[in-house]
C-alpha cells in the first residue's frame, strides 16, 4: 500500500512546515486555512529580470525559507500581463540543479577527455593571466578573441580584450539576428526599431515563429491582434505553432525575398502604397521601383511555389490594412548568404505601407534622448548613466580578423559590437588574416551554437588557451582549459537593463537568494577579478555592483532602493508614444544622417555594391535531397536550457520532421531510427513523419544532441543541427543556416 510512502516526504517539499510528522500514523495537520496563511507569510517576493532566455521579462521570484520556490511574471508589468513562459517558470530548477558547475575547473587531461580538477579562483585567474600574457607576448594582444551572448556584463568581459589590445570582440548575433541589424542600420540609421503587434490588423511573418520562439510581450501582442480579428499569414516551409494560428503558406526555402519583391511589384502596379508617405519620409524609392519592375507574381510563383493569385490576394489584403499592418522583420535571420537584403526588402515594403511611427506599425524605441524635442514628453525620463568611467584602452595594433569596420568592403556594415563570429574557427585553423591563439567565451557555446560543430572543436583543440564562463559544463566548457562558474541570475546583480519600447523602461536584476554554490560568482566580479590579476584594475573602477547601479540610476534621477522595491521603472503617466500617432504628417526622423528612411542605402552601396536589394536565386534541393532547416521550441532556449531538469523532462530530445510522402518513398516510418547525411557530416536521429512540412524540406529543433557528458540529461539526446551545417560566412558576416541539403536513410 502506497500509504506508507506518504510518510517519506513532506507535502510541501523542502522547507515546508505545513505538516508536522510525529511517529508512524501520528501526524499533526494544521487547519488548512491557518496553514495557508502561515505559508503566505513565509513567502517573500523579489522582483528581478529573467535570464532563462534573453528576452528580459520582468519577474517576481517567490522566496521561502531562503529558497526560490517559484518564479512568476511581475504582476504590475503591462507588457507581460504577469505571465512568464515555461522556461521562466523553470528558473528554480536551474538554480538548484546539482549539475551546475560549482567550482572553477582546470583541465588535466587532453582536450575532450573530460578530465578536470577543481581549483581555487586564485589558481584559475593566475592560469588564465599567465597564458594570456604569453599569447600577448608571442602573437600580440589581437590573438585573443572573446565571444558572448549579448548581455549586460559584456562591458566587463570585453574590457579584458580591450586592455590586452585585441579588437576581436564578438557577440553571438551573427548566428541569429545580425542580418536584420544590418538592414535596420542601413535603412533607419540604427537598429532600435520595434513593432506594435497588438494594434496591427494584418501580420505577415516569413518564418518568424512567435509562438515557439517565445518573447512574452510579443506573443501577447500578436495574440491580441488575432483575437481582435486581425489576419495572420505565416510563410514557412514547416507547419509551426504560429502557422497553426494563421494561414499557412508553405513557401519554398530560401525564396522569401522573391515573395517580398513581388508584393512590392503588385503594390506599385496596382497603386496600393502610400505615395505621400514615401515622398515625405524616404529617399531612393525610384531605384526600388526599378529593382522590382520585373519581379511579377508570375515570376515569384516560379521561385516560391506560391500561386501568383495567392501572392496578389495577400498583397491586396495587406495593403488594405495600411498603415496598421506589419510585415515581420524576423528574429533569427541567418538563412542565406544575402539574408540582409531580405530584411531590407521587408522593411522597404513596410515603409510602402506608411506603417512608421503609428499604432500597429514599426517605431523607434523611445529612449529619453528621443523625447527631448517634445516639450510635453521630455520631462518623463532621463537616460541611465554609466556605472564607471574607464581610462582609454590601448589602440589595437591590427584590424579585426573579420574585416569589420573596413570601408568599401562588407565589413563596413558588419555591426561593430557583433562581428562575424564564424571567422574565429577559420582564423584559428588557417592563421588568416592572422592566428587567434586564445578564445574566451561567456554564456556562449560555440560547439552547439555555431555551424560545423566538429570544425569548431578542431579549432578549439589548436588553441593555446580556451576559457568558458557559464553555469553548466557546456559543450564548449568540456573542451576548455579553464571553466569559470557563473552564478545564475537569481543570485546576482547585473548592470541596469534598458528594455525601452514605446516608453522608456528600466529593469533591475537583483539577487533573490545568496549564491547556492559558494564558489560561483557574478560575471562582473569574475572579469573584474581576472582583470585585476592581469594588472588591468584601472579598467574596473568600481567597488561592487550596488555602487555601479547607484551611479547608473542617479543619472536617470532614480535610486537603487526604489528599483529594488519595484523591479522596473516606466515613466508614470506616460502613454505609448508614436511620432505620427496624432498627425500623419508629423516629423518622424530616423537616425540616418539625413533623418530619412533609406530605401536606397548609400552605405550599402559603398559596402556591398547593393544599395537596393537584389534578388539572388539559391538552388532548390534536387530529387532525393532535402533542405535542412531548424527552429526554436517553446520549452527550450537556443543551446541554454536542455539540461535544466524540469525542461529536460518536458522535452529531452528532438526528431527530424519529414513529410509523409517523402518518408514513404524512403521506407521511413514514424519513430524510425535514421541517418541524416550532409555529405561530410552525418547524424543519427529519429524520424517524425508528418503532414506539417514541405516534401522537399526536413526540420529539427535546435540545441539538442549535446556533446558534453557532464550534462547527463541532455548528453547524446537527439540531433545537433549544427553538426550538419557548414561554417560558411554570408555577405555581411552572418552564418548561413538554411542552404544545406541533406539526404535521409533508415539507420
Amino acid at each position, binding site marked *: *500500500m*502506497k*500509504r*506508507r*510512502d*506518504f*510518510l*517519506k*516526504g513532506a*507535502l*510541501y*517539499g523542502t522547507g515546508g512546515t505545513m505538516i508536522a510528522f510525529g511517529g508512524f500514523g501520528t*501526524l499533526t*495537520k494544521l487547519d488548512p*486555512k491557518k496553514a*495557508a496563511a502561515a*505559508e*503566505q507569510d513565509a513567502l517573500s517576493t523579489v522582483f528581478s529580470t529573467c535570464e532563462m532566455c534573453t528576452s528580459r521579462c520582468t519577474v517576481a521570484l517567490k522566496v521561502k525559507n531562503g529558497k526560490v520556490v*517559484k*518564479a*512568476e*511574471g511581475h504582476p504590475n508589468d503591462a507588457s507581460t500581463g*504577469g*505571465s*512568464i*513562459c*515555461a522556461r*521562466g*517558470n*523553470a528558473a*528554480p530548477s536551474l538554480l538548484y540543479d546539482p549539475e551546475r558547475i560549482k567550482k572553477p575547473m582546470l583541465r588535466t587531461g587532453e582536450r575532450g577527455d573530460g578530465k578536470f580538477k577543481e581549483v581555487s579562483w586564485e589558481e584559475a585567474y593566475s592560469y588564465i593571466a599567465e597564458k594570456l600574457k604569453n599569447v600577448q607576448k608571442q602573437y600580440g594582444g589581437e590573438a585573443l578573441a572573446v565571444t558572448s551572448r549579448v548581455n549586460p556584463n559584456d562591458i566587463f568581459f570585453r574590457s579584458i580584450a580591450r586592455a590586452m589590445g585585441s579588437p576581436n570582440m564578438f557577440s553571438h548575433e551573427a548566428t541569429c539576428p545580425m542580418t536584420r541589424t544590418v538592414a535596420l542600420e542601413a535603412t533607419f540609421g540604427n537598429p532600435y526599431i520595434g513593432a506594435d503587434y497588438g494594434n496591427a490588423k494584418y501580420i505577415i511573418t516569413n518564418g518568424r515563429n512567435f*509562438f*515557439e520562439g*517565445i518573447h*512574452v510581450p510579443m*506573443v*501577447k501582442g500578436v*495574440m491580441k491582434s*488575432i*483575437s481582435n480579428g486581425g489576419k495572420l499569414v505565416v510563410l514557412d516551409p514547416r*507547419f509551426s*505553432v504560429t502557422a*497553426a*494560428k494563421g494561414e*499557412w503558406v*508553405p513557401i519554398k526555402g530560401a525564396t522569401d525575398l522573391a515573395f517580398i519583391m513581388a508584393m512590392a511589384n503588385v503594390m506599385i502596379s496596382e497603386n496600393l502604397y502610400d505615395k505621400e508617405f514615401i515622398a515625405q519620409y524616404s529617399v531612393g524609392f525610384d531605384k526600388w521601383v526599378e529593382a522590382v519592375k520585373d519581379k511579377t507574381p508570375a515570376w515569384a510563383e516560379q521561385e516560391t511555389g506560391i500561386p501568383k493569385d495567392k501572392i496578389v490576394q495577400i498583397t491586396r489584403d495587406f495593403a488594405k490594412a495600411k498603415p496598421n499592418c506589419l510585415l515581420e522583420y524576423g528574429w533569427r535571420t541567418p538563412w542565406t548568404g544575402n539574408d540582409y537584403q531580405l530584411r531590407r526588402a521587408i522593411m522597404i515594403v513596410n515603409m510602402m505601407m506608411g506603417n512608421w511611427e503609428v499604432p500597429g506599425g514599426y517605431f523607434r524605441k523611445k529612449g529619453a534622448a528621443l523625447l527631448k524635442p517634445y516639450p510635453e514628453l521630455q520631462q518623463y525620463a532621463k537616460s541611465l548613466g554609466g556605472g564607471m568611467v574607464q581610462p582609454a584602452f590601448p589602440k589595437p595594433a591590427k584590424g579585426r580578423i573579420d574585416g569589420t569596420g573596413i570601408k568599401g568592403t562588407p565589413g563596413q556594415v558588419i555591426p561593430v559590437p557583433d562581428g562575424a563570429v564564424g571567422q574565429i574557427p577559420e582564423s584559428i585553423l588557417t592563421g588568416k588574416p592572422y592566428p587567434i591563439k586564445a578564445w574566451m567565451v561567456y554564456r556562449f557555446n560555440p560547439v552547439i551554437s555555431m555551424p560545423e560543430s566538429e570544425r569548431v572543436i578542431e579549432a578549439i583543440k589548436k588553441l593555446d588557451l580556451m576559457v568558458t564562463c557559464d553555469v553548466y559544463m557546456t559543450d564548449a566548457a568540456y573542451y576548455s582549459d579553464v571553466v569559470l562558474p557563473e552564478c545564475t541570475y537569481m543570485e546576482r546583480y547585473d548592470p541596469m537593463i534598458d528594455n525601452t519600447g514605446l516608453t522608456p523602461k528600466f529593469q533591475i536584476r537583483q539577487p533573490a537568494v545568496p549564491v547556492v554554490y559558494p564558489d560561483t560568482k557574478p560575471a562582473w566580479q569574475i572579469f573584474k577579478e581576472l582583470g585585476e590579476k592581469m594588472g588591468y584594475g584601472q579598467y574596473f573602477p568600481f567597488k561592487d555592483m550596488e555602487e555601479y547601479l547607484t551611479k547608473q540610476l542617479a543619472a536617470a534621477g532614480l535610486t537603487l532602493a526604489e528599483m529594488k522595491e519595484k523591479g522596473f521603472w516606466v515613466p508614470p503617466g506616460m502613454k505609448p508614444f508614436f511620432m505620427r500617432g496624432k498627425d500623419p504628417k508629423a516629423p518622424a526622423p530616423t537616425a540616418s544622417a539625413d533623418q530619412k528612411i533609406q530605401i536606397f542605402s548609400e552605405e550599402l552601396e559603398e559596402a556591398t555594391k547593393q544599395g537596393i536589394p537584389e534578388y539572388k536565386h539559391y538552388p532548390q534541393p534536387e530529387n532525393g535531397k532535402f533542405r535542412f532547416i531548424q527552429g526554436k521550441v*517553446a*520549452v527550450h532556449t537556443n543551446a541554454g536550457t536542455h539540461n535544466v*531538469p*524540469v*525542461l529536460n*523532462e*518536458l522535452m529531452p530530445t528532438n526528431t527530424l520532421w519529414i*513529410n509523409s*510522402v517523402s518518408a514513404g518513398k524512403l521506407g521511413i516510418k514514424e519513430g524510425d531510427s535514421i541517418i541524416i547525411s550532409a555529405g561530410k557530416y552525418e547524424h543519427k536521429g529519429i524520424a517524425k513523419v508528418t*503532414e*506539417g*512540412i*514541405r*516534401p522537399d524540406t526536413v526540420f529539427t529543433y535546435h540545441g539538442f544532441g549535446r556533446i558534453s557528458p557532464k550534462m547527463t540529461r541532455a548528453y547524446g539526446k537527439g540531433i545537433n543541427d549544427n553538426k550538419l551545417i557548414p561554417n560558411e560566412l554570408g555577405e555581411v558576416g552572418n552564418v548561413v543556416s538554411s542552404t544545406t541539403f541533406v539526404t535521409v536513410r533508415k539507420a
Partner: protein
Amino acid sequence: MAKHYAMAVVVAKCIGCQACTVACKFQNNVPEGQYRTKTPVVGPKGTFPNVSMYFEKQACQMCQNAPCVEVCPTKASHYNEAGVVLVDVDKCVGCKYCLTACPYDARFINKDTGAADKCTFCWEARVSKGQVPACVSTCVGGALVFGDEKDSNSEIAKLLSKNKGEVRKEEFGTRPSIYYIFEGVK
C-alpha cells in the same frame, strides 16, 4: 448563492507553450515525472498543405458530479465548501479506485505522498486567497479564464455567455467545471 469556480480554456489562444505545466509543478511541488496538468498537441490533422493543429489543456475537470468522490471508500476525495473537488491526503489510502473511476485520466498516485493527486485549482495557496490558479496567472497566450461562473459580472461568466463552452465526455454526466471554447480554432 454558493460560488461555482470554473475554468474556460480558449483553445484558439493556447499556444502549447507549457508555461502552465511548469507553473503548476512549482506551485504544487509535483514530483519529478508527474503532472497535474499538461497541454498536449492535437494534430496535425489533414494532408499537406491543408493541415490543422491545436492544443488541449488536460487536468482534473472539477466535476460537479464527480465519480472519484463517489467511489472513494475513505471520503478522502470530497467537495470542499466552494464545490472544488479535493483529496484529503490524510484520509487517502492509495487504493486507486478514483484513478480508475475518473473518465479524464486526471489522477495519479503522488510519488512523494503516496496519496491520489490531481489539480486542486490551486485552492489552498491561491484561490482561497482570491488569486487565480498558477496556470491561469502565467498563461502566455491568455487562453485560461478562471472565476465564479455564477457571478454574472465575472470574466468567465461573460465569456461563457458569448461563447459555447464544451465539456469533455458530457455523456458521462459528470458535469465538469472546465469549459473548452473552440471558437476560432482552425
